[in-house]
């Protein structure tokens, strides 16, 4: 089955550039310039993955609306926000609506492709029984590298792809300090320092929601972050 990616973006140049590069990598691409046309198409046939801009034409938050509607059609469809809006508020809003990732338009195409590939892999594997496990265990932490799923003390922690890569980057070498550049590299991301800080905050919150005593991620001021799971 061909992978069909829907790109909903009101800027024609970007839309076509993304479409081109995705097509070159073997995906089937459908492009939409606004929410009604995209939604109309989605009702007929769901894409395999959707890349949505937040601001769509006249609709300031058209992307959020679209995401909510799309999520109501399918709970598992991977959705990526790709937008110029980078405020914490927008990021949190987008992720709360059920998007799998929230990227700013600074992201380079290779990074975007890596994400798309990873998301497809995750959605593929979640539908079939695990053939072979590729797992990282650090005390209470359980990372399924194939499905990009995380659990803490047996409870699943719902991380976005970026967050998963960050946790993976930290947990791979417990006790080693990862600076922000390393984290960005590992998370296929180019952002500024404060965005990394926001990401780490959100990751901590998600773990704390599962375990109020969670403190495995250390901040090493001036340098970066460190995984300090027990036993190390």
């Amino acid at each position, binding site marked *: 089955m061909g992978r069909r990616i829907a790109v909903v973006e009101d800027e024609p*140049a970007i839309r076509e550039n993304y479409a081109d*590069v995705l097509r*070159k990598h073997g995906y089937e691409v459908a492009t939409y310039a606004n929410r009604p046309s995209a939604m109309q198409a989605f009702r007929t046939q769901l894409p395999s993955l959707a890349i949505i801009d937040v601001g769509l034409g006249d609709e300031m938050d058209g992307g959020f609306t679209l995401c909510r509607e799309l999520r109501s059609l399918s709970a598992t469809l991977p959705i990526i926000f790709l937008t110029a*809006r*980078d405020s914490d508020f927008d990021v949190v809003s987008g992720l709360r609506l059920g998007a799998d990732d929230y990227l700013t338009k*600074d992201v380079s*195409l*290779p990074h975007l492709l890596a994400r798309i590939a990873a998301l497809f892999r995750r959605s593929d594997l979640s539908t079939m029984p695990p053939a072979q496990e590729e797992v990282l265990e650090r005390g209470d932490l359980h990372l399924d590298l194939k499905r990009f799923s995380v659990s803490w003390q047996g409870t699943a922690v719902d991380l976005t792809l970026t967050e998963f890569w960050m946790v993976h980057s930290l947990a791979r070498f417990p006790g080693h300090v990862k600076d922000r550049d390393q984290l960005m590299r590992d998370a296929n991301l180019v952002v500024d320092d*404060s965005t990394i800080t926001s990401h780490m905050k959100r990751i901590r919150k998600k773990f704390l929601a599962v375990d109020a005593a969670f403190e495995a991620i250390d901040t090493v001021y001036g*340098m970066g972050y460190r995984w300090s799971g027990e036993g190390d």
Partner: protein
Amino acid sequence: MNLRAVAPGLRTQVLLLALILLAVPWVGYRYVLEMERFLREGQERALGATARAVATALHNRPGLFATSGAAPLGSSDSGLYVRALSAPIVLDGFDSDWPAPADASDAPIYAGATVSIVPRLGKRDRHLYLFATVSDEHVVYRANAKARPDSADRIEIAVVDPHGSFLRFVVAPLGPGRAQALRVVGDGASWETPIVEPRVEAFFRETRRGYTMELRMPLAMIGPRLGLQAASVDDPERRETTSMAGPTGIDNPGVLEPVVIPESEIDLALQELGRTTTRIWVVDRDHRVLAQTGTLKPVPDQQPAFQQGSSIGSRIWGWLEQATLRRIYVQVLRRPRDDFDEGTQDPSALIGAQVDEALAGSSTTRWRATADQRAVVLSAAHPIRAANAVAGAVVVEETTNAILSVRTRALETLFTTALVVLTLGTLTLFIFATRLSTRIRRLRDQAEEAVDAQGRMRGGIAASSAADEIGDLSRSLSTMVKRLGEYNDYLESMGGRLAHEIRTPIAVVRSSLDNLSLQMLPEEAKRYMDRAREGLTRLSRVITSMTEATRLEQTLQHAENERFDLTEVVSGCVNGYRLAYPHSVFDLAAPSEPVIVSGAPELIAQMLDKLVANAVDFAHSNTPIVIGLAVDKNRALLSVSNDGPELPENMQGHLFESMVSIRSGASTTEPHLGMGLYIVRLIARFHGGAARAENRADRSGVTITIELPQTT
């Protein structure tokens, strides 16, 4: 600001304006003075009219003056001179209560062989008084009450009474002290059968050279003529009258002196005028007082008790006024006094220029002060004519006390009223001005509050609902601030929006380049690709730093405070910097014990990042960057200091503002929008602290210090 300290405030100005109210008492005072002048003129006229009226009543009544004028009682030849007595006389044989004689002719001596007499006559209260000083070597008393009246030393008086009868009295005492008078002639009496006359009282006192006798009898007993003599008996055995002396003969009516007692008609005429505080004199051509009535001093009648006020308020007011204002008034205002002293005055004669003028035929009024200056006396004189000649004069006198007391009362009322009006007026104005200036000041404070030191809109101005001009101003300001705020918001969001708008074309360029790089490109083209990418990266950084402050402000709104050890954060950061800036040297001077502050450690780290990046950029190479942490009175002092160029004098206060940079040129590849220290200040403020930049004391470099409140 400075002007406000010097120039008087609205309240002061209004109070200065209130000084106009001071004109009220001044005008009132002028009015009272005018009134007083008017009253004085009125009094002068009234007094002149009184004088004229009295004079007119006495015009052409020569009888009044004729008798006394032809043979006045006590004409200088007869020596029987009846003077008016001003003081009451006590019958005690002493003459201390008699006025002293002016000269020898005033008290002539009538001498006989062995006896001489100095008689003095006076009139008071419808009585005739006699004080006789008699020289007599041997004082012989009557042997007993039955003895003949002429058997001892005696004073004899003869009168023709109003009915024309000839009466003769003898006072021949039985001893010193009170003595009886015996009528020896007339009305059935004779020398042999004298009758006691109780209306005549006498007092006898022995002296070294003889005796004195003081005597009183009603004027009603005295008719047109009067006689008087002293008789002496020297031998108590033989009891013969040896000597007699006196101004007149006494044996029959023919030798008596004619007398008119100036009681009668003038007095009656004057009394009918009945003025209480007016004194009226009538004098004859020789200045002798024919009649005098009234007194300048009012009869001390009962002062009405203080009015019991009908309401408590008026009573309290009265008490207040009594307790405070009256005391001041007594000090300041001259109240008329009735205890003035006119000085000694001869009651029997009125002299002075005014009387002279009146006797010369002209009527005058005159003001004079009493001897003790306590009162002013107004006198009006008018001639009395009889048969085309001036027969005498009327002098009417009155003090100005009545006017003075009216004036004083008017002034008191005026000042009290003025005081109340002034107080109330000033108070009202003061309250009004205070309210006005409070409202204006509140508006000013709101206006100042609305914009912070950086010119950012902080909040709006609450529009007042008052209908007046200040309310109007407030509404205008409110609208203005709102519009300015909207414009400010627009400007502030400009950076973010600009960044956002630029991001889309960047994405176009970036995705295009990415697409392009997937093509097979010649080597030459790759070089240009790389350059294009490098430019793009720098453009991204510019946008990132443009939005950094805005994003930080958003972050601060949601940041959560925690307690953390500042020492740990700082030393951790410094370790990081040693790795991040391998070419720089970092010296850390931090206390060993923890310094606990409340806040967000990652923000503190971000702040320190900015400070250190700044210091590294400015430091001379191979000089250490000194990072210090110290505690001073509950405040943590975090400082970053580097060798390097000094701060320009005029920039020290502005360094921490947005978009301010003192970097001289685009020497570095990193974009510098001057946001670094602005972010430092934002974070310091968020922690309740402050940031300041100073040149080092030895001018070798710059120190930036952050003060943070310490949590205990």
